[in-house]
């Protein structure tokens, strides 16, 4: 059973994508059903696999030899352990809900079939990343994730903004992937393999194996995660990616693709167990380990994105910055060595954030693609189910007990408190900001008075869209009681975890474990909530821009990252383009093309004179030729 299931889980979505593209492109209904069926079966197989006790312990690797080039032998393998089983479950569950939701959301789109093909293809790529057992295979699927996300972000490619956003996402990811690839090559050059197990074993035997390159290798690999998980300074693509259809945002930019970076860091965490050391020219950096850099980048991303989210008015962009901020949390946790808490938060976040996106999608669907929260208001009565699930997900995101986010965020902050107090305070402040901007969204968009005349006509969305939201609401609310951290701790920590306490004790467990962290966390939530209530409870327009002035403007303009990058690219690219132009004009076109062409033509014109058209001239030349040839042959 567990031998064949992983292959089916991986290849069913690919099969659906291929079938739709080749055969059922004209038949919209059939395409959608194929795609949904594939991912639902994948989900079901994942559940079966997950509950199979033999699959998780001690883990399982299924592999076939894939390619042998020189000294490099790569397998195409599927690695099953607690980490990938959990991730399989998250990806297929969220993807399944979103496939079904898309069935209604995208119904009026003319490229309905193409949409489902791309969605299935993305699911395949993401599952490939999750199941990979070596760096090269993971990199391949990593790139496929990038390509399919490009297709989905730019799905409405006749809108220039969407086409540009797709391009931006792809190019930004390219920057990170260059580092990732360099890291993989470095590891292969140093250790002679790209297989995770093999590398982990080598480094466990001798943590000094990587010598002076250990930190560099770690940071290069982190580059890949930095782009995929949208960490500063490569975060700029994620907010723009909101130009894609909303279900795509829910799938790619909440639950899966952006989580791939964090997942990958957890998968290759063994790298960071190597003794930190810098190469000769960089020894002044001694004492800084790759993990510290990762933790700080995560922390800065978390804080900065939360600050920016406060002044966004587009409902999807608020959620996008919120995603950035939460991803920053996870990366920070990985940097602090807390793989368990990072994956815990990733799991809970996948459910409540995709639920938030689906709720936002429902609102956008009913408001005819209006995304400005200041043109919404009073949606609570019009869309009670959407509001209910949205509020639930918001509370989970803020970390209100006993919802899922409370447990994971507490685990995460607890880790930070034990390891690094400045980062803990930063995380705590971010938690307050999170509550603030989310309740700003709730107060403005769902409560208060209608802010636009269209609100009167709004109705609840159809059942096909509500059902996935209700399905996601269950884990968003209750996942905390399942104790993901205990499940993962079996694999990640050498100390056997304590037995899982009964559910009613779990709610209070954080208060017994680290009471200070738990109380401060609740305090941060309360601060954020009351601040939002005070400022936005009855506001008709945003009062912050007047109070904060320039800071608010900077927040609204996302701290001018895009402008800065545009400037840098303009300068460097201009120089490069000038040089390329000069090279092309003078070296390639001048010396190369014109030179070759000119020489040929000169001799051609010269030789042309020999052709007179006179038969006797030809005869003489021919005769002379024969004589010369004979002479040459006979006197040799």
């Amino acid at each position, binding site marked *: 059973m567990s031998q064949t299931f992983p292959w089916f889980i991986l290849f069913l979505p690919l099969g659906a994508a291929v079938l739709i593209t080749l055969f059922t492109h004209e038949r919209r209904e059939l395409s959608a059903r194929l795609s949904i069926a594939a991912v639902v079966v994948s989900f079901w197989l994942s559940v079966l696999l997950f509950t199979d006790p033999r699959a998780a312990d001690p883990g399982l690797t299924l592999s076939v030899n894939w390619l042998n080039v020189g000294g490099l032998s790569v397998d195409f393998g599927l690695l099953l352990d607690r980490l990938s089983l959990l991730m399989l479950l998250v990806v297929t569950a969220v993807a399944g809900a979103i496939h079904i939701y898309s069935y209604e959301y995208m119904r009026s789109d003319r490229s309905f079939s193409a949409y489902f093909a791309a969605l299935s293809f993305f699911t395949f790529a993401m599952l490939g990343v999750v199941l990979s057992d070596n760096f090269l295979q993971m990199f391949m699927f990593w790139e496929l994730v990038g390509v399919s996300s490009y297709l989905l972000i730019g799905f409405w490619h006749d809108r220039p903004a969407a086409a540009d956003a797709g391009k931006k996402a792809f190019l930004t990811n390219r920057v990170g992937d260059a580092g990732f690839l360099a890291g993989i090559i470095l590891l292969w050059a140093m250790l002679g393999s790209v297989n995770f197990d093999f590398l982990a074993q080598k480094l466990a035997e001798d943590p000094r194996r990587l010598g002076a390159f250990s930190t560099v290798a770690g940071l290069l690999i982190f580059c890949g995660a930095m782009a995929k998980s949208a960490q500063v300074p490569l975060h700029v693509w994620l907010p723009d990616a909101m130009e894609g259809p909303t279900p795509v945002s829910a799938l790619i930019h909440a639950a899966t693709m952006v989580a791939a970076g964090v997942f990958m860091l957890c998968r290759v965490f063994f790298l960071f167990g190597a003794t930190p050391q810098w190469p000769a020219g960089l020894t002044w950096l001694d004492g800084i380990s790759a993990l510290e850099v990762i933790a700080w980048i995560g922390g800065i991303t978390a804080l900065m994105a939360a600050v920016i989210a406060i002044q966004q008015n587009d409902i999807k962009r608020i959620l996008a910055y919120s995603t950035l901020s939460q991803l920053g949390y996870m990366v920070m946790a990985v940097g602090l060595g807390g793989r368990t808490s990072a994956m815990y938060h990733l799991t809970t976040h996948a459910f409540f954030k995709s639920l938030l996106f689906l709720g936002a999608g429902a609102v956008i669907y009913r408001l005819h693609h209006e995304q400005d929260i200041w043109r919404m208001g009073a949606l609570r009565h019009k869309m009670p189910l959407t509001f209910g699930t949205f509020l639930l997900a918001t509370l989970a995101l803020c970390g209100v007990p006993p919802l899922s986010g409370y447990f994971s965020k507490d685990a995460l902050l607890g880790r930070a408190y034990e390891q690094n107090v400045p980062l803990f305070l930063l995380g705590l402040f971010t938690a307050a900001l999170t509550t603030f901007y989310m309740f700003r969204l709730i107060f403005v968009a769902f409560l208060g008075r209608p802010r636009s005349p269209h609100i009167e006509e709004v109705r609840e969305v159809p059942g096909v869209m509500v059902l996935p939201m209700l399905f996601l609401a269950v884990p968003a609310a209750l996942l905390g009681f399942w104790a993901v951290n205990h499940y993962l701790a079996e694999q990640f920590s050498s100390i056997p975890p304590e037995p899982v306490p009964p559910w009613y004790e779990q709610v209070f467990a954080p208060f017994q474990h680290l009471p200070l962290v738990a109380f401060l966390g609740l305090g941060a939530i309360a601060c954020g909530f009351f601040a939002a209530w005070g400022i936005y409870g009855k506001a008709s327009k945003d009062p912050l821009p007047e109070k904060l002035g320039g800071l608010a403007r900077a927040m609204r303009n996302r701290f001018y990252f895009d402008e800065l990058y545009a400037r840098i690219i303009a300068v460097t690219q201009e120089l490069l383009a000038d040089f390329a132009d000069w090279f092309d004009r003078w070296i390639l076109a001048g010396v190369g093309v014109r030179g070759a062409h000119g020489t040929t033509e000169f001799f051609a014109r010269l030789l*042309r004179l020999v*052709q*007179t*058209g*006179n*038969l*006797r001239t*030809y*005869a*003489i030349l021919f*005769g002379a030729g024969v004589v010369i040839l004979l002479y040459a042959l006979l006197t040799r």
Partner: protein
Amino acid sequence: MIGLVHYLVVSALLFGLGVLGVLLQRNLLVTYMSLELMLNAANLALVAFSRFNRGLDGQVMVFFVITVAAAEVAVGLALIVALFRRKQTVGVDDLTDMKL
């Protein structure tokens, strides 16, 4: 006594005459005849060698050459007739279209 050398001298003379004819004559028909002359000079040399070497190979070869030459004359003359019909001339110096 007439020996191999005599035959070869005659053959060479005929060949030389043919070459001169090809190079100097302005009439296409005469040029063509000169070509035939060269061909037959070569035939003569072949037959002579064959006879003095007491073999039959050269003579057999000459039969083939004559056969092929007959076919060649048929084609060549037809071409010249066609050319004359079109251009109303067989002067080599008037036919200078064979250039770029």
